[in-house]
């Protein structure tokens, strides 16, 4: 099951539509890391609202996505983790440390816009040599 990836402004939005196998997850990771430079995206949103299970492999892959995208110079937000999924993840001992998460897509976009502005301010605030 391929995950459709849409470009909206400077962002890539990957919306998971149904359960993903380990191979699907790996493919999503590789595609996102690859596409980020093709479209010169500044941020990536992975919408996992449709996932009813996020197990250790999925968590690790999502974390890898976020860290790889950061190394490529952009930001990632995971949006829409369902309450029962969050419950199971915590019980299992899984965290998404160092990875931004928001309630839904709308909040995710807002997060990326804010973090983009912060970056610009930091850049402009730097003393010139």
């Amino acid at each position, binding site marked *: 099951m391929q995950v459709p990836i849409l470009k909206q402004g400077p962002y890539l939005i990957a919306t998971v539509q149904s359960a993903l196998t*380990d191979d699907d997850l790996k493919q999503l990771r590789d595609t996102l890391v690859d596409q980020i430079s093709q479209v010169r995206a500044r941020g990536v949103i992975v919408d996992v609202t449709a996932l*009813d299970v996020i*197990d*250790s492999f999925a968590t690790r892959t999502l974390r890898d996505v976020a860290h790889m995208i950061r190394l490529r110079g952009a930001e990632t937000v995971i949006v829409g983790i*369902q*309450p*029962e999924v969050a419950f*199971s993840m915590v*019980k*299992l001992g899984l965290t998404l440390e160092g990875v931004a998460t928001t309630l839904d897509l709308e909040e995710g976009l807002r997060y990326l816009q804010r973090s983009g502005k912060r970056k610009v301010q930091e850049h402009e605030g730097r003393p010139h040599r």
Partner: protein
Amino acid sequence: MKGALIADELRVSIDSDSDIVSARQKGRELAAQCGFPSTELAVVATAISELARNIVRYAVRGEIVLRLIDNHGGKRGVEVIAADDGPGIPDLTLAMQDGYSTSGSLGLGLPGVRRLMDEFDIVSEFGKGTTVTVRKWKR
């Protein structure tokens, strides 16, 4: 661990990635039949996912058996048996520790499954295989 079978058991053979997904979906459906609330359905499905992945990763193939059970006192629950005839686990104490892994994974599978479920039992014989039996009772 005692419990009587109250419905036909469901067997899912596990030998690829996609079997992990179908095993957890079938487990969720079975637990839903039993009337588990949605939080517990996610818990059961997540536990099955970890157990099935262990089979694919360490034993290549095996089987997940899903059963609805009764504790003779009117309490109902779901039982999951994950069995393989793979290499077995050389050191169970280590394997049950958070963060221990021989495959580069997060090492949360077995100890995590124990935290997710109400009952947990593991039998592993080096060179012969591993059987994990877990249960979740409906509250």
